[in-house]
């Protein structure tokens, strides 16, 4: 088993899911609690990675990050080295790819909240920030957990985007799914099987935790 690829994948997934949460919380908040023109466009963009082939997404990410792309140029001028085929580039592309998996559970859990609770908080003198921290987040935390775990698991298993923007550099962009692919290409089924099984088990356990938590936590409050 390729421990280096495995560790890289976990590091990538952890980085992506945490950064995504920071991005998805305000995004989901505005989608759930505000009505504005053009909201449907943002919702469509967020959902795009669900229907787009990862190669299409990866292709455009690669173009944007390349030496002639806008992101690539800005990056080059700021840090003096290219963005494509780096860990950071991989993180950015993966965030784009897993965005719906972070935003949609948050929107679902925000929208299932009783609006009167938010009204009550406001009438009792709380501003939006306090209402968000004291009422929305604590009541929607299963949604937050789901967002974290789904974007983690989704990033862990991605292949097409990584191949396009990351390439196959050991220790930098060679993730576990690429590793499995390489092993199969080399007809080393034994090694591919070891890693694949591990990934399968990890994914299953993680999802079981999410569904279990959602059932236990949500049921008493949704029942009323």
């Amino acid at each position: 088993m390729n421990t280096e690829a495995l560790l890289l994948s976990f590091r990538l997934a952890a980085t992506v899911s945490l950064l995504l949460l920071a991005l998805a919380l305000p995004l989901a908040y505005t989608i759930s609690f505000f009505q504005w023109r053009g909201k449907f466009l943002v919702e469509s963009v967020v959902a795009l990675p669900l229907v787009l082939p990862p190669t299409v997404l990866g292709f455009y990410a690669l173009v944007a990050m390349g030496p002639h792309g806008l992101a690539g140029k800005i990056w080059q001028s700021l840090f003096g080295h290219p963005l494509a085929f780096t860990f950071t580039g991989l993180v950015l592309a993966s965030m784009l790819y897993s965005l719906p998996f972070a935003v949609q559970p948050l929107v679902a859990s925000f929208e299932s909240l009783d609006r009167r609770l938010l009204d009550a908080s406001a009438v009792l003198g709380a501003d939006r920030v306090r209402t968000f921290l004291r009422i929305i987040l604590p009541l929607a935390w299963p949604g937050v957990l789901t967002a974290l775990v789904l974007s983690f698991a989704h990033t862990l298993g991605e292949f097409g985007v990584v191949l396009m923007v990351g390439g196959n550099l050991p220790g930098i962009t060679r993730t576990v799914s690429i590793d499995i692919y390489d092993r199969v290409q080399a007809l080393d089924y034994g090694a591919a099987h070891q890693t694949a099984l591990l990934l399968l088990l990890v994914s299953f356990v993680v999802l079981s935790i999410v569904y279990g938590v959602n059932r236990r936590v949500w049921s008493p409050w949704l029942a009323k």
Partner: protein
Amino acid sequence: MLNVKIRKQFRSDAAQPFVLDANVSFSRGFTVLFGPSGAGKSTLLDCIAGLQRPESGEIRLGEKVLFDAAGNLSLPPQRRELAYVFQSLALFPHLSVAQNTRYGLDKLAASEQAERANTVAKNFRIENLLSRRPADLSGGEKQRVALARALVTRPSVLLLDEPLTGLDSSLRRSILEDLRAWNEASRIPILYVTHNREEVDAIGERVVTLVNGRVQETGAPRAVLDAPRSIELAQSAGFENVLSAVVVEHRVADGVMRASLDHAACEIEIPLGDAEPGSEVRVAIRAGDILVATEPPHFLSARNILPGTIVSVETRGTIVALQVKAGTLFQVHVTPGAVRALDLSPGLLVWLVIKTHSCHLVR
């Protein structure tokens, strides 16, 4: 004094969109907001609280402007310094009773918070519930906690949207007593939405009736609700009989007029009202205001005595609802004892006795 003059229109698929158009003032003490469901009572409270925004008008609390469409000013709810108890109560499910009660006090020092929370807990008798979660409270306890959470902030207006729905009447009385005691101590405008006639009589200093988004009447509960002027109000004020009638003649000297019911099936005498002879009107009569006799009654002051036949007898708790065909169909409420004493049963010939002033002209 809370002055409200607002207009808010709701887009809908219906031919006539719902419009809330209210111009009303609320002085200190209880004002009951009464009206059929869908009349706009909760919307009015939401606009006052700043949770919905009217299109035009203004809302002032004494000198303080809460909302002014012309000046494009609308204070957010958190800066209006009022308290609102929703019909659903909206207790925070993840916070204990103590945390719920203190939620509105976060800007105060800890010692002040504790003192206020203790006082309100004592006043509303929730001291022994402080560590519990809302899910572990009974209906009455939840209502007490919701009131305590609202009042601990010392608001300058209190909005109550059917806060005691679903409680039995002894529990309701006990909570109302606590609320009245609190009102004695801090005289602020209290807007109390209810459908319940018993609550109106228990707390009502004044009643404002709202029908189809408009303020219809303002006055003492008895004056407004015992002589409703619209069909919707008559029905929600508990008038079981709303009969269509045609005015036959005016007897101005007697202060009455005669009206024929249901295409001249029978005639009754009603108080003189603003309706010309020949015009169609509605007459509202409470089922409990109609007497039943099993023989033709004599020597009575009541002017309306109508012979008829009992169609059905239905016991509903402590009242018995009769349907009597006397020209038109009347709903009549009597006691179970009366049913036994007179042996009332379907098919029996009876005489209905209705005082002139139990008949109310409605539009």
